[in-house]
């Protein structure tokens, strides 16, 4: 039985720019289960990175999470705050109702993040070991309940030989480097980011995220910009670490190959919304949404030279509020578009076969039923059957 660790409900992240309001994330709901890899796939500008940043509370002005709840499974904190608290629901805590400081300390202890470009995610003038050590030290200090406020900063500035990172944390950082398969971790820890290759630095980045000992790791395009063998290495590493630590991974990527090799479930994101969400093999074998199908058709097949790649024509829609079409955001590029599509905005609905395979398309059932599999009516019995089979 899978238990969710994060429950996102109706999350809306908006950017208030001079051009107008941008609905980068437009009311999405999903669960991340314990120990699973949930992957979000979509084109650039579909809002997947913003979703990840919203989970980490890294949205800065002019952006803002305007609505929705992010429930995080944290029994201790929930017990501490008491059941009467609005921010508590059973063993879950709503991250959005937490004070910024409490929110931030959760970041260092329960949530970790890997960034797309490790070259810029490391401070160029500090050694890699020092920076991973900083994450370790930060987690330890939060665990000890220590603050780092104006007073600490001033004391730190006044003492000439001050180092935030203790020796033990630095040693632990070396251990983490070893864990992510970096050779000579002791020597490497003393090197600067520019002395690392891209793949090595991405591994170091993973080590830095692991330093927080996270329950959920958010990986924002961890393999983009790396060559294929190194990509495979990073994906292997993530899979191993996930098996070892039992953490959940929220993987943001636009590489479907990566998704199919690691993800348990996949969400297809487009125009700030999820168009499809379901078990990876299910979604890729029987895509219920025309957009997913379109994405899959864009994949080259190295074994079959005659297989023609069909690009999806057109561009990602503008996410500006006043330019957004009334209906489905994919309508103007969709091959199966009907007049109805431009009028009604579809919401995620379970497909007839499997309850945990959700799709947002008004044509989904009919389209699927006529082409791929025999007509199935949405009856409670079918739904519960599907749900049971998915849980097995």
């Amino acid at each position, binding site marked *: 039985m899978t238990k969710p660790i994060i429950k996102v409900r109706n999350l809306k992240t908006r950017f208030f720019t001079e051009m107008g309001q941008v609905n980068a994330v437009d009311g999405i709901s999903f669960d991340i289960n314990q120990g699973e890899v949930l992957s979000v796939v979509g084109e650039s500008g579909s809002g997947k990175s913003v979703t990840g940043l919203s989970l*980490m509370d*890294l949205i800065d*002005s002019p952006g803002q999470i305007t609505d929705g709840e992010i429930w995080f499974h944290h029994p201790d904190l929930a017990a501490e705050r008491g059941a009467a608290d609005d921010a508590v629901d059973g063993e879950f805590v709503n991250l959005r109702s937490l004070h910024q*400081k409490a929110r*931030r*300390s*959760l*970041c*260092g*202890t329960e*949530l*970790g*993040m890997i*960034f797309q*470009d490790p070259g*810029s*995610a*490391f*401070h160029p*003038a500090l050694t890699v070991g020092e*920076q991973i050590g*900083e*994450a370790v030290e*930060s*987690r330890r200090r*939060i665990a000890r309940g220590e*603050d*780092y*406020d*104006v007073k*600490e*900063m001033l004391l*730190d*500035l006044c003492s*000439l030989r001050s180092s*935030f990172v203790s020796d033990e944390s630095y040693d632990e950082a070396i251990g983490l480097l070893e864990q992510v398969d970096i050779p000579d971790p002791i020597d490497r820890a003393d090197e600067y980011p520019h002395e690392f290759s891209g793949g090595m630095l991405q591994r170091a*980045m993973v080590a*830095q*995220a692991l*330093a*927080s000992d996270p329950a959920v790791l958010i990986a924002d395009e961890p393999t983009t910009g790396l060559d294929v063998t190194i990509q495979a290495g990073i994906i292997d590493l993530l899979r191993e670490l996930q098996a070892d630590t039992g953490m959940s991974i929220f993987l943001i990527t636009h590489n479907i190959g990566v998704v199919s090799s690691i993800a348990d479930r996949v969400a297809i994101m487009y125009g700030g919304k999820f168009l499809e969400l379901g078990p990876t093999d299910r979604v890729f074998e029987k895509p219920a949404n025309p957009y997913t199908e379109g994405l899959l058709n864009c994949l080259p097949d190295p074994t079959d030279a005659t297989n023609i790649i069909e690009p999806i024509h057109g561009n990602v829609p503008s996410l500006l509020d006043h330019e957004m079409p009334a209906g489905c955001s994919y309508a103007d590029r969709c091959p199966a578009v009907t007049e109805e599509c431009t009028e009604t905005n579809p919401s995620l609905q379970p497909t007839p076969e499997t309850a945990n395979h959700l799709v947002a398309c008004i044509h989904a059932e009919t389209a699927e039923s006529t082409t791929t599999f025999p007509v199935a009516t949405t009856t409670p019995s079918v739904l519960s059957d599907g749900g049971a089979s998915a849980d097995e």
Partner: protein
Amino acid sequence: MISKRTRTAVLKELHSNKLATVGTALILCMLFVGMFAPVLAPHDPTQQDNSQTHQPPAFMGGETETTRLVDGEMQTVTEDNSGSLTHPLGTDTNGRDVLSRAIYGARTSLLVALTAMMASLILGTSVGMTAGYFGGKTDTILMRFVDVVLAFPALLITLAMIGVIGPLTFFIPDPFVTSGLITDRPTHMVFPVTITAAIAAVIWVWIARVARSEAIRVKNEEYVTAARTMGRSNFGIIRKHVLPNSITPILVLATIQVASIIIIESSLSFLGFAGTNLSWGYDIAQGRDYLGTSWWLSTIPGLFIVIAVVGINLFGDLLRDALDPGIDRGEV
């Protein structure tokens, strides 16, 4: 505090850039002179001697013809008017040694300049970092205040502040004299508190602006975001990432501001707000009336100001070239 890399960069720049070497030499000379003023000054700078007024510098030789009343009748007499080594740079209207006064003036100027610079460095960096890092309303309120201060000429604000606060001075015992090493010199250094405070109050805004823009630049770097995902607090991030990455341009600016502070200080003492009469500006003002006959009275302290300001500016250029990796080290 100062990394090996920084040190090698500064030394390399010193070797390759002649002007920078000159600047550094000038500024070190000035500091040396200011620190060891009681040892270096040949006379007590406040010692008056009415028999030795308007003595020219030692290198001035020769005789001058003057027409004056001798034995009841007007006569044109030739007088020996060459300088003597007793007063190498001559004496002023009251017979005080010009060189000693200039040396002691260096002390006042540097004391004021360095203190005011430190004060504005601390204030400016704090305000700029806070405004830049936190942004939003904090930024707006702080920076609009900075803009208001920037909108007025520095001298005007300092004059107004001196008018409001009044001349406060602080006497610091001179270690050379109190230890009995040197006698016949002023026993205390005069530290003009009002002037220092007034100057710091106008200089910090420049530093705040640079600090703010640097903080904004750095806080948008991805490694700051990464630090946030580690759960570092805002002040922790400022200390570890934002400040170290923005301090270089701030330090370079602060160095160059020392030169402006010296000029403001001299202007204020020229106008008579010195708080002490051992100041270059004060001496220039005193000698102004005798420019036609005793040019050295104003020229010598003026030259000292020039040396200090040029030295500091060249040194500031050196720091900028050495510390900014993006700067083009091509031939000018």
